[in-house]
């Protein structure tokens, strides 16, 4: 993995736990539990990277277990979306809780990111016939 320019050297263990699983051929779910903030950027990135290394062309980032989505975390979501697009893959976000919807709504990022209500909805949106983001809201 390339060194992460967003690790700002804060000497703190990861604030999030990430689990990666293959949901369908080429489609991986990366589930994040905890805070998506400056401390956990590396952990979340690592999870997505794992999925890509394992051959994912679509990655569903499951944010259902996110406790707090900080500005650094929102920046990460934008960057990952761009990153994956450049690499010929696709990032889909899943999560309907206030801890995720509220920061994206307040900052207006919900207009730039495709946030699906849950993992099944995101998986459906990632299926080959409909391989583009479905702007639901």
């Amino acid at each position: 993995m390339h060194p992460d320019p967003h690790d700002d050297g804060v000497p703190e263990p990861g604030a999030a736990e990430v689990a990666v699983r293959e949901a369908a051929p080429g489609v991986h779910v990366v589930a994040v539990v905890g805070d998506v903030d400056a401390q956990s950027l590396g952990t979340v990135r690592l999870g997505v990277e794992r999925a890509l290394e394992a051959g994912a062309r679509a990655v569903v980032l499951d944010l259902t277990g996110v406790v707090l989505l900080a500005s650094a975390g929102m920046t990460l979501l934008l960057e990952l979306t761009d990153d994956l697009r450049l690499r010929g893959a696709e990032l889909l976000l899943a999560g309907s809780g206030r801890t995720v919807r509220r920061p994206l709504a307040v900052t207006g990022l919900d207009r730039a990111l495709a946030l699906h209500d849950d993992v099944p909805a995101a998986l459906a949106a990632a299926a080959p016939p409909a391989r583009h983001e479905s702007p639901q809201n």
Partner: protein
Amino acid sequence: MARPEPPVTNGPVTCGSGVPGDRFDPPEDVEVRVPAGPRAVITMRTVAADLAARAEFTLDAVADLRMAVDEACSSLITLARPDTRLTCTFNVHEEHITVTASVLTTGAERLDTDSFGWRVLTTLASDVRMLSATPGQDGDPFRLALRLSVERLGTPLS
């Protein structure tokens, strides 16, 4: 007894001035100090959310306050002198909660107000102010503070 007595009926009768959440109408102020590290941020936003919830702020307001406190404290601790503390005071008012977070810095540091983090902070909170104190004659070091308020109903979406 001074307390006015509710009427007796056969139906449900309630007593007491309210559930635990709504009994603290008057302003409350809480001061918290923790070593200025990443853990401090979690303690501070937890205290903030608890105070807002107990003051019966809306769920949006509680969420906004947690995020605003997280942003403010996360920024400040990056500028804190080693082995010093992050201090937050929380003032609970009828219609808003004001938080003042501060750290001792190694110089006349300021936070970058062009960052996305700053924009998120100023979107979530009203009346965000950066306050700094230069060393006094008694040798006090530099102190940098952020003051912000979150309204009872939370931030209106634009």
